[in-house]
């Protein structure tokens, strides 16, 4: 937008103050002191919108193409000083407040954003027919995960994009299986579908980035017959800022941010990547978390450092950690009052991840509830201690897990006979603190195949 140096007077027709000062504005315009911008013309309205004018009349001083000074409403002495002209409007009252700019009229904001900024949107426009039900139209086009979605109108997508400072055209990731470039805009379109608020978008973008890394391997995770889908753990100030749930029912329903961030990630995979159940998604059973599996860590009352800090993100920053998780399974222990006893309960339950006779290939997250965490806090166990103790309890005798042992064909190959096998690889066990204040329960989230052939947990900082 090229603005010539000088003074602009922004006015609208139905503003009494503008009408009052019309003779002054005409006089200044006639003398070549100001250029008049009327919000009653499309060009004037656009200029007013682009310059962020909130009140009419407003005088704007432009120097070097930039607005350097603003004067709102009518006040003779200040207008005279601004314009450098004495004796303005001698018959007028000394001052009058202005009126609201047309750009601020109810319902105008979205309309103007689409009219004047809509050209930043590059996505294909799809028309919903006159007789089509909007919600049904989204289903008909295959854009949903089976639940209704919010139609991604240009106005909604522009509002969503206001949640990030990143350019709409910036490529965030290449999304398998179709290896389609995901622009910030395309992610925003899917975030609208999912029901996100604009302030969630940075978290969704970080989750998409993390998912589409070689280490996380969303392609393999999608294609596997196994249960898992992406579990998203959010750390740092963003979680509270956007109202995420880390407390009562943290892994359950009812919180918009938890529900829609995880859903947006899955919709990106579905719509952009083309990963559809029965297509590339070959899950035998899947799990309900494949609609959305996203929660925040309760850092405030945790006895331990946050997951993201443990994974290398400086404290005080926001981050997402993705894990190829199956559904939560319960750890009930209402009687242990020592860390040692509770660690033994954890180990006993963790042994069943994937199968009690399978080891090393599957990682796990333990979501430790506040009442269980208190037991470890009381005994002074940090996460490292807990991990070491649980790992040592989960050294399995090869003879007990070899194929055929216990009358069960499933198990590890003959080579393990006579040796000791760890249930989890060295970096295969993680602890996160979340949940309601009451309940001596924790949850185990088993993983999919780990390592090079499978999926590694991936942490990404949330940018603005």
């Amino acid at each position, binding site marked *: 937008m090229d603005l010539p140096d000088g003074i602009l007077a922004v006015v609208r027709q139905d503003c009494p103050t503008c009408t009052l000062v019309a003779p002054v504005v005409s006089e200044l315009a006639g003398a070549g002191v100001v250029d008049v911008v009327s919000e009653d013309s499309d060009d004037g309205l656009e200029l007013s919108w682009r310059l962020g004018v909130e009140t009419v009349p407003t005088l704007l001083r432009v120097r070097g193409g930039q607005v350097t000074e603003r004067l709102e409403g009518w006040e003779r002495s200040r207008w005279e000083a601004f314009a450098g002209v004495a004796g303005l409007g001698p018959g007028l009252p000394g001052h009058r407040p202005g009126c609201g700019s047309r750009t601020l009229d109810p319902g105008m904001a979205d309309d103007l954003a689409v009219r004047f900024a809509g050209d930043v*949107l590059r996505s294909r*426009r*799809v028309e*919903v027919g*006159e007789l089509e039900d909007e919600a049904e139209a989204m289903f008909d086009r295959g*854009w949903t995960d089976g639940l209704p979605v919010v139609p991604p109108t240009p106005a909604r997508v522009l509002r969503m994009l206001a949640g990030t400072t990143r350019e709409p055209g910036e490529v965030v990731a290449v999304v398998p299986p179709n290896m389609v470039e995901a622009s910030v*805009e*395309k992610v925003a*379109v899917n975030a609208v579908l999912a029901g996100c608020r604009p302030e969630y978008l940075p978290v969704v973008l970080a989750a998409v980035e993390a998912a589409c890394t070689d280490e996380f391997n969303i392609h393999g995770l999608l294609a596997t017959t196994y249960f898992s889908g992406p579990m998203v753990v959010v750390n740092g100030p963003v979680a509270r800022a956007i109202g995420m749930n880390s407390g009562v029912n943290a892994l359950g329903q009812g919180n918009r941010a938890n529900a829609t961030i995880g859903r947006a990630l899955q919709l990106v995979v579905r719509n952009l990547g083309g990963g559809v159940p029965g297509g590339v998604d070959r899950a035998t059973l899947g799990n309900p978390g494949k609609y959305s599996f996203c929660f925040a860590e309760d850092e405030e009352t945790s006895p331990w450092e946050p997951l993201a800090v443990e994974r290398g993100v400086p404290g005080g920053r926001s981050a997402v950690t993705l894990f190829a998780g199956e559904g939560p399974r319960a750890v009930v222990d209402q009687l242990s009052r020592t860390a040692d006893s509770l660690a033994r309960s954890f180990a006993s339950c963790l042994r069943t991840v994937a199968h009690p006779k399978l080891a090393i290939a599957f990682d796990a997250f333990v979501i430790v509830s506040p009442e269980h965490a208190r037991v470890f806090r009381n005994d002074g166990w940090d996460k490292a201690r807990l991990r070491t103790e649980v790992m040592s309890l989960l050294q399995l005798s090869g003879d007990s897990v070899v194929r055929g042992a216990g009358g069960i064909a499933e198990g590890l190959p003959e080579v393990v006979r006579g040796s000791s096998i760890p249930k989890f690889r060295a970096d295969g066990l993680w602890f996160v603190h979340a949940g309601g204040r009451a309940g001596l329960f924790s949850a185990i989230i088993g993983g999919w195949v780990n390592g090079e052939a499978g999926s590694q947990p991936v942490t990404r900082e949330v940018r603005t």
Partner: protein
Amino acid sequence: MTRIVRTVLDPTGEVKPAGRERVRRPPALDGRTVGLLDISKPRGDVFLDRVEERLAAAGATVVRYRKPTFAKNAPIDLRHEISTKCEVVIEALAD
């Protein structure tokens, strides 16, 4: 009346056409099951009787259906039956 067309942005990778793709037209009707849907307009049955004769002569198996009234959408059970039993459907739209 103003035609209201709402625009939404395509959330996909845009590798397929935006319009919904139609099922491909079969190259021949010989051996196919063709549904004839009478929408209950007067004399639609006369027209469809003749269509049935021609289709049968062409080797198609014809199944006849009838909507209770032309003024309303076909009941969901009827639509389901047609979609599961027929490969092709011909709808007699007007009298």
